[in-house]
Every structure is written in C-alpha cells, then in structure tokens.
C-alpha cells in the first residue's frame, strides 16, 4: 500500500482511505486510461471488479468509478473520474479487461456514455428504446409510467389526510364556536326569563 501511495504521488495523485478495505483515487479524464493501464501492468491491480456511473445532474457531469482488485483481493481501489454530461465519451478498456465490454455496453444504454472503439454497443436490456437513457436523472420514471400506462380508477375516493385534518379541526372549531354562541344565547335567554321565574317561584 505504501508503494502504491508513493507511485501515485509521482503522478501527483492522492490515495484516500475511505473504509477499512476501501481506497479511492481521483483523476482527470485525460489521465484515466494511462492510470488504469499502469494499475494493470505496474501496480498489480489486474482485476476489474466493476465500472460504476453516477449522474450528477446539478454539476453537469457523470462520475465514473472503476473498482480494481489485486489477485489477493484484500482491498478495493476506486479510480474515479468525472466527465462532461453533454456528449459524454470515455476510452473503451475492453481490450485490457474483457468483462468491461458488457459493463460499458450497459453504461452506454443506461446513461448514453459513448465508447469509441467498442465493438458491440448494441441493446443491453431495453429493446427499441427511443427515449433519453433511463438512468439519467432528468428521465422521470413516474411521468413515463403515467404516460404509458392507464391507471385503474377505483381508488378515486382516497382522501388527503392533511385536508381532512384541517376540515375536522375547522369543523370542531365551528362546533365549539356554535356551542359557545348557543350557550351565550341560552344564558341571555335565561337572564331574560329568570325574573319571571323568580316571580313565579315566590308565588
């Protein structure tokens, strides 16, 4: 591990320990391919476990994470880079790691990241998909479902509990007010009637 840190320092990169068995290094897009190759050929990280992509819509970029393992498989190094969201494109690494072919194909379909030189950028799970790539965060799943599928209408009698609470509170208040008014009116009535009653009692 110390060797790796010193080797990365030569490339002016910093290795951060995230968890017990997890390290992370961030690189620029231009350095990525050469760094991955030196991880493969020089540092001994010959296993590519996965390629992960995340969509940072607010910052306008995709964050791509390559997870690498040594043959000992006792820790993971995440090599992270961020690329522009518009016309996203990355160098394909399927020639070095055969399993990257399928991971890149998936990323192409789900995020629309282009891989020049990739042999099979065909459909992965979605056939004849003509919308924007579905895992981009500006694709609204709920909207899509509502557009594509009709809903059964028998749940229209559902009530909004907050509105109902308000209604009930107001009804309660009104009832209380009414009760108070009635009580006041009754009291007034009583005071009007009382003298006569007293007179009656005396009689």
């Amino acid at each position, binding site marked *: 591990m110390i060797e790796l840190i010193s080797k990365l320092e030569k490339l002016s990169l910093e290795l951060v320990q*995230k968890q017990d068995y997890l390290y992370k290094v961030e690189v620029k897009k231009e350095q990525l391919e050469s760094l991955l190759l030196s991880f493969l050929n020089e540092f001994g990280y010959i296993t590519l476990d996965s390629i992960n992509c*995340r969509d940072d819509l607010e910052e306008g970029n995709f964050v791509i994470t390559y*997870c690498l393992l040594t043959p000992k498989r006792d820790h*993971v190094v995440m090599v992270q880079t961020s690329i522009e969201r518009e016309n996203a494109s990355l160098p394909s690494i399927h020639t070095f790691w055969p399993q990257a072919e*399928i991971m890149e194909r998936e990323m192409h379909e789900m995020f629309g990241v282009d891989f020049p030189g990739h042999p099979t950028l065909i459909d*992965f*799970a979605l056939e004849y998909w003509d919308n924007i790539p579905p*895992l981009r965060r500006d*694709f609204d799943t709920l909207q899509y479902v509502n557009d594509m599928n009709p809903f059964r209408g028998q749940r229209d009698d559902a009530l909004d509990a907050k509105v109902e609470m308000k209604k009930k509170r107001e009804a309660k208040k009104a009832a209380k007010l009414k009760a108070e008014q009635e009580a006041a009116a009754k009291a007034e009535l009583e005071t009007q009637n009382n003298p006569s009653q007293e007179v009656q009692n005396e009689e």
Partner: protein
Amino acid sequence: MKNDLENTIKIFHGPQHPGITGNMSVELDLLGETIKRAQTHVGYLHRGFEKLVERRTVVQAFTIVCRICVPEPDPNEENFARAVENLTGLEISEKAKYIRTMVLEMQRLATMFLWMGGQAGSIGLGLIPQWSVCDRDYMLDLFEELTGGRVYHMYAFPGGVRRDLPEGFLSRLSDLLDYYEKRIIVYNNTFFDNIIFKKRAIGVGIVNADDVIKNAYVGQVMRGCGIKKDVRKDMPYLMYDKLDFDIPVQSDGDVYARALVRRDEMLQSIKILRQIIKQMPSEGDILQKIPKHRKFKLPADDTYVQTESARGAMSYYMAGDGSEKIRRMQVRGPSLVHAYTLLEKLLVDSQLSDVAMTMNSLGICPPEIER
C-alpha cells in the same frame, strides 16, 4: 469451415425453458448437437431497481433491494445496510452483527439447496429437486418465524436488524442443522457420487484458472479452479473474522468441481452456524436509534461494499448527496460477468444438452444482470 457456419441452426434457449435459470435466453448457433456460437440476451426482467431507489428515501429503498435476486435476497440487504452504515457512520451492536451473520449463512444454505435442485434437475435426476426443495423449505420455515417472510425477508436494516430472535429459535436452528448434516450424506450417495452426474459433469465447462483473476470471476467458479479466495476471509465483515471456517477448493475447474465446492461450503456453513449458536450474545440492542425516514440523510460521499453471496462476491456502489434520497446505487452481482463474458465462451464447442447444466453451475441469476 464456411460450410459449417452456413449449415448452423439458430435456436433460442429460453426465456421459457425449464433448464434456464430465470428469465433470460441464450441464442445458440448449432451444428448438429454442437454449439458454434452463443450469445446471451437479457431484458425480460428489467424492473429498474437502480432507478426506483433514486426516487425513495433510505428507509423506503431498503424494502426493494431484496428483490434484486430471488433465490438469495439477504446478501443484497446486507450490502445495502452496510453501505448506508458506511456512509452515515452508524455502528451496530455485536448482537445485531451476529444475527446478520447468522441470517447470511442460513440464506447460503437455503440457496445451495435450491441450486442442488436446479443442477440435478438440469441433467434429468428428478428425485433430487423434490428432496432439496423440501429441505430448503425447512429453512424457509425458520426464516418465516424470524423475519415474517419466507423468501423476501426485509430484515437487515441500516443500524441493525428489525426483530429480535424468537424464543427457542436457536435450538430449533440447531435441530435443523443436525437434520441437514444427515441429509448431506444422503445427497452424497444419491447425487454427488452418482455415476450419471459424474459422467455428465466431469470435463464439461472447464474454466481456465488464468482467466479467472483478470476477468473477475468470483465464487465457486474461482474456487473450483483452485484459487482460495473468499470475501469473508479477505475483507471480513460482520463477525466473520471471529468465526473459524475453511474455504473449500477444487482444482479441476469443471462443473463437477464447482458442485463439490458447493457441497463443502454447505458443510462449512453448518459449522459457522453452530459457532454462532454458541457465541450469540443474549443481551444487546438489535436496532440502533435511527432518524425518521424523512430525516435520514446520506452525506455527499460514496462507498463500495462487498459481500460473499452463495454464488460469489456481490458488490454495491452507493453514493449520497446530502439529501434523504440515494443519489446512486449500483449493483454488481456475480452473474453479470458470468452470464456474458464466461458463459458465451464456455458454451462454444459444448453440447446442447449441457447448456442448462453449465448455466446452473455458474449460478446465473438474471434479475441481478439487468436490475
């Protein structure tokens, strides 16, 4: 050679085929009975978990991850829970750790029994599936008691587990393990030593040990080639560093070697569970105090966790963004590489009747490929 390719017949093995391990298909170019080209197709089961998780809060998302793999939901729950714990810095108690380890090992046994049914059924031994699925059901009965569900447990929660052990649960588990130990001898006689299985499986689907490391093959595919690697030993999580167990390996790399590795792993699981029964603390919080679901926020950070499932290492990448929603959760199950890179290579020049057997021995689970 050109003549060969012209005379091929194209058939689709799956998605509606009893020998396929779920809703996927393999497109085969056949010359006689020999496969000349194989191409995997998925897309029959795309439910979009990774997208759905982004719309939910952490508490809501946890109920969906177990559906990513039907035969073994628990490694998914464990991965999800541990990723959230890594991000938020939640510490879980020792008892919760033991319970989670126990659930993972119980799940491993249940998955192995289901695998045994598939493996034997795919070569025409009809008796073994009936037995092994019955034996798996005894484990599901225990799950039902512990978690409230037979298949989808929704049990491991960020911060611990959702329920305490029922009274007398450990003794019932111990009884079941006694029963399983006896059963494995029976399966040895009728299945693993069976000459039909040996004749069909030895020398079929041989994986080259040199490819294994570079191509990130995991699980029994790796251990069947004699590479002694296991996430439970290499990057221990939960209580695995305090438990004593071996990693079984075989050197041949064929379907039979992988079957033997799985059988030995079942014995190791029983050994682990016996230790857990002995060491289980009687006191301890099962669930840490966690915020309400609208206030459970993930920091803007990312993490990567690995769990050894019954079919190999299963990894989750998870990133938060400071809000209560998960920015991104990516699943990398063992099937993705096995079903594409490995299966397409293994099937070339093998027989049509070996396709189902090879797929079963690789432990391919389509919902994990397309998520």
